[in-house]
């Protein structure tokens, strides 16, 4: 028993709990945004399982593939695979198993949802991690597309088809991801350089990266507010979303005009809070 608990503890950092949790929550919020009967617990629980398993699985596969560059970066060198705490073969098996269970569970729920979740996994593991991450700084676009899949899957499960609101929600996540990742890559630029991972900062300079963050924040806010209007979110929740979106816009613009290292890290954190809050708005709007 102790061995199992120890193994779970060792695997916990591999699934990036906060990031996975946030992505799972976007999927649940996408589902709830359609004013589904909230007490349809089996479907909601099924979606939770499918998303949690597939996102955890893809994150483990991501770390399995990147363990060599993780070992070169200060920020990631203590990760279980990079530091050798977990054998790579074992992690690969767990990652594949979780991914399979997640996608299979999603297909059992609804074929369209399964297809979307599978696409997310494919974009994240194959296109983003294996094919592009070490070659092009534009890989984050594909990382963004895969990040937008959980919310699209949740929405599609609820309405039974792909609709423009689902696409807009997905775009909201896609545009939010540069704010999140680029502000992080500015802070850890030397780490990425050491590992030879191309980033926007190394390719286009810090000014262009900051401008990209500001533009992406504006587009993310427009997409999420547009989707919220389309969903028919009440005025109260719309006001809250508007306040948070304006906050994100002002913060991004200030950081583009008068950047500081501390401010950039603050923006990275604020972008996470913004996304979590937006998802709460969509989730509780459906209750």
């Amino acid at each position, binding site marked *: 028993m102790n061995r199992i608990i120890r193994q779970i503890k060792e695997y916990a950092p591999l699934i990036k709990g906060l990031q996975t949790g946030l992505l799972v929550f976007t999927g649940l919020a996408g589902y709830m945004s359609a004013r589904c009967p909230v007490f349809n617990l089996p479907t909601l629980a099924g979606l939770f399982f499918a998303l949690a398993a597939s996102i955890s699985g893809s994150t483990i596969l991501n770390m399995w593939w990147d363990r060599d560059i993780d070992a070169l970066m200060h920020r990631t060198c203590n990760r279980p695979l990079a530091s050798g705490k977990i054998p790579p073969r074992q992690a690969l098996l767990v990652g594949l198993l979780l991914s399979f269970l997640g996608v299979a569970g999603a297909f059992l729920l609804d074929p369209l949802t399964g297809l979307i979740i599978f696409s997310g996994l494919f974009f994240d593991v194959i296109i983003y991690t294996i094919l592009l991450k070490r070659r092009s700084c534009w890989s984050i676009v594909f990382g963004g597309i895969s990040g937008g899949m959980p919310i699209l899957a949740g929405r599609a499960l609820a309405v039974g088809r792909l609709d423009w609101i689902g696409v807009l929600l997905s775009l909201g996540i896609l545009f939010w991801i540069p704010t999140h990742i680029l502000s992080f890559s500015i802070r850890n630029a030397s780490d990425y350089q050491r590992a030879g991972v191309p980033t926007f900062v190394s390719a286009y300079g810090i000014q262009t990266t900051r401008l990209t963050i500001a533009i992406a924040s504006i587009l993310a806010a427009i997409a999420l507010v547009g989707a919220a209007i389309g969903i028919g979110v009440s*005025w*109260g*929740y719309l006001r809250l979303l508007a306040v*948070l979106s*304006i906050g994100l816009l002002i913060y991004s613009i200030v950081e583009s005009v008068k950047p500081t290292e501390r401010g950039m890290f*603050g923006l990275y954190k*604020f972008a996470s*809070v913004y996304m979590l*809050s937006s998802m709460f708005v969509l989730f509780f709007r459906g209750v």
Partner: protein
Amino acid sequence: MPSTKLDRILFLGTGLLAAYQVTTGIDKLSPGPILAFTIAFGILLLTSLFFLIFGLDGFSSPIPGISSTLIPLSMGLGLVLQHFPRYSTLYLVYTIVGLILVLLTGLIRYHRPIHTITITVVHGIAGLTICIIPAAIVILGRMQFWYIFVAIGGACIGLGGILFSVFRFDPKKLPWKINLHFFPALLFLMTLCYVLGFHFG
């Protein structure tokens, strides 16, 4: 200065209360007051998030100064629009002029006392408006007794404004640690009073 767990809990509580107020607490009002109160509570929400992220070190940035001006101004404007619409144009002019003065004096780098005095005056008048209007309305019997909590919130923001001004003007007059840790509690208490006043009043 790092913030304590209690500071962070208080900032989180302030943010949640402000979010509640923006979402549902002002729904029954007419569009003018809704807009003014949304600005007030929206800035309160963003400010609490700012302090959650940066901790008490955030006090060294210009954000607290801007927030401590905008919150009472928009709150006062909302109350005037709601209860004394006849004076709304006059108060709107005061709000705009006050804000411009605070921003302009903030640009004069080597005359910080002028900026601090301007903030104190503008903030003080707005704070008095927030204190007097709800109290008068309750005395006149136009709102229930609970609405007096809005006045208490006004007193809190007034107290906070004075402390903040003294803190900026001459920090040696106040013990640094006590002062800074005092703000999260005051911010939370102020927001709680507003929410109670608006909800039950």
